[in-house]
């Protein structure tokens, strides 16, 4: 499938597009906008609410022009009341609507954690299944340009700990569109975390509405020597790392988790069984994070590794602002390469 492939080189993708005139390439942010427009057109119970969803920029372009197209009742700016607005969206969902709530930053989710954790996540169970909360909560990870500690967090692990929620982090334009549509149709509260750096990434996106199933990871690159399990922006870093490592004769398999909750243990286990080496590349912190969960699943599956697993995470500190510190803070392709080399050389005699 052409849309499951990730091109780390834009020129290569442009060439592929030329060779396949039937296929269309659009940016991640435009894929989200298109999905939202199609959801609004096809289902009158869908509405968009959030701070600045109607402004000129339209949440980095993801809601741009939608209010003009669908009106202020369907695409609604909101007061700066994150918890209140989240609760209002949750209540509207319980009363039969399908809100798409947009928080401009992941960092604003802690302000609304009561409504997400104590209400949305529990409402169905607490009332014996007689009511449901079909809400999608979109939020964005900022990065770079001194965004600093309160505008760049990657808090997915917090939400993975709460039964009743689903957590998704699409890495490609194709998945961004298909998973947003799936999330809205899912019927459960879904926390969708988008990485700001993915917004300009261009990939194949069909024009029509389609769904990408939640709960299914995808193998982005096959390889026999080591498994890199990655999420969101780190999927792209991992692909680049894998391409570089090919020159050293190390073939990496790259798995894009896409959905963090429920986690697709099967796809991970299948790969690790083959490679026996595991690296987890996360956008967030290490403790009790995505890597901890993935490695625990592999251990529970009884899979023996040829080398100790390695996690690539943010260092144990809030995000600094200075460009020099910021550069030192974020792991990427190089750290993944180092991690793969480490698991590949494990146990081999030093020269």
């Amino acid at each position: 499938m052409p849309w499951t492939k990730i091109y780390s080189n834009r020129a290569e993708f442009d060439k592929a597009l030329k060779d396949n005139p039937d296929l269309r390439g659009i940016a991640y942010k435009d894929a989200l906008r298109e999905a939202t427009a199609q959801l609004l057109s096809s289902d009158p119970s869908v509405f968009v609410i959030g701070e600045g969803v109607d402004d000129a920029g339209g949440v980095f372009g993801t809601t741009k022009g939608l209010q003009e197209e669908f009106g202020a009742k369907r695409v609604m700016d909101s007061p700066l009341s994150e918890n209140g607005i989240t609760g209002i969206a949750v209540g509207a969902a319980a009363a039969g609507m399908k809100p798409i709530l947009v928080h401009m930053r992941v960092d604003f989710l802690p302000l609304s954690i009561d409504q997400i954790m104590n209400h949305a996540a529990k409402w169905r169970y607490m009332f014996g299944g007689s009511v449901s909360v079909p809400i999608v909560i979109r939020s964005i990870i900022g990065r770079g340009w001194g965004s600093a500690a309160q505008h760049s967090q990657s808090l997915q692990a917090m939400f993975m700990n709460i039964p009743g929620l689903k957590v998704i982090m699409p890495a490609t334009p194709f998945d961004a569109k298909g998973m947003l549509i799936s999330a809205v149709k899912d019927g459960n509260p879904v926390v969708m975390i988008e990485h700001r750096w993915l917004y300009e990434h261009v990939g194949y996106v069909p024009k029509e509405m389609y769904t990408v199933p939640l709960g299914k990871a995808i193998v982005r690159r096959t390889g026999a020597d080591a498994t890199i399990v990655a999420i969101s922006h780190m999927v792209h870093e991992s692909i680049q790392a894998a391409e570089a490592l090919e020159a050293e004769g190390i073939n990496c398999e790259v798995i894009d988790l896409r959905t963090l909750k429920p986690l697709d243990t099967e796809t991970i286990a299948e790969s690790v069984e083959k490679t026996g080496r595991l690296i987890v590349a996360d956008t967030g912190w290490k403790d009790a994070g995505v890597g901890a969960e993935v490695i625990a699943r592999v251990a529970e599956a009884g899979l023996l590794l040829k080398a100790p697993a390695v996690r690539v995470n943010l260092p144990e500190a809030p995000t600094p602002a200075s460009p020099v510190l910021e550069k030192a803070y974020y792991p990427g392709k190089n750290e993944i390469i180092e991690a793969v080399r480490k698991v590949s050389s494990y146990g081999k005699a030093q020269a």
Partner: protein
Amino acid sequence: MNDESLKICQGRITKKELGELYFQMLRIRLFEERIVDLYPEQEMKCPVHLCIGQEAIAAGVCIHLKKEDYVFSNHRGHGHCLAKGSDMKPLFAEFYGKITGCSRGKGGSMHLIDIPNGILGTSAIVGGGIPMGVGAALASNLKGENRVTVIFFGDGAFEEGAFYESFNFAALKKLPVVFVCENNFYATNSRQEARQAVCKISGTAAAFDAHGICIDGNDVLEVYRAAGDAVAKARSGRGPSLIEAKTYRWKGHVGPEEDWTKGCRPEDELREWKEKCPVKRFKEALSSGNIMDKAEMDGMEAKIKAELDEAVDFAKKSPYPDTIELLKDVYVEA
């Protein structure tokens, strides 16, 4: 309440409605008293937050609502559900943790639901139900329905940010919401004066250019009038109102006991409020106004007691959930 207030009200209230108000108040009182009687058996294995002393508010507000109108409530929600029309059986079954409970035994007394009667679930996080209620009102508005949403909350919830965030939004969008603050002066054991800079909850509405009124929550006719105005206003698209109804909870914050024995609140205060008992006051007014005679009142009481007997019997005889229920309904399955 006196004959005068009954007369004022009679211009706009029918005899049938007066009877209905008394019936609902008595029904809530006897329901809660039955819990007090049965709780020591320790078969209801969940915390209970009783509303004895506060019955006039639920009765006086809900009489104005249609079946499809929404009510959002809190941990002290038995009275709100009953007044909105809930059957006693699934409520009692829920307290007993049975599969026949309104929440299939997963919620307990703090999490009641009755969708056909417009109760979409009750939150036990203080203030948590307030934004959800505004959200239901927004849904009604977006769908072009004409439902009114009533949100019951206490003086403690008034201190939560969720209240201000929600009230602002409701006022901004002119949503059909009636905010009913049952001010019983205590958040658990902490007095209102120790928690609030200005003890004038209803005054807050003015800051949002909305209607606010402070009333005697133990005078069911005063509640009836204030709620009638607020519901009519909401239904005609003129936005939210805030009713502060002053009242007093006779029992401790949680459980069937009075709490003055533990030094939580002064006994004299409880005694004074018992004098202002909403059920007793209304009963006396109805008698002296020749609205209802003793036989009619006794008949109501007997009817309610029979309903209670049947509900408790149903709850006790119902089966517990099978343990396979444990992992059911966490998610909507595709």
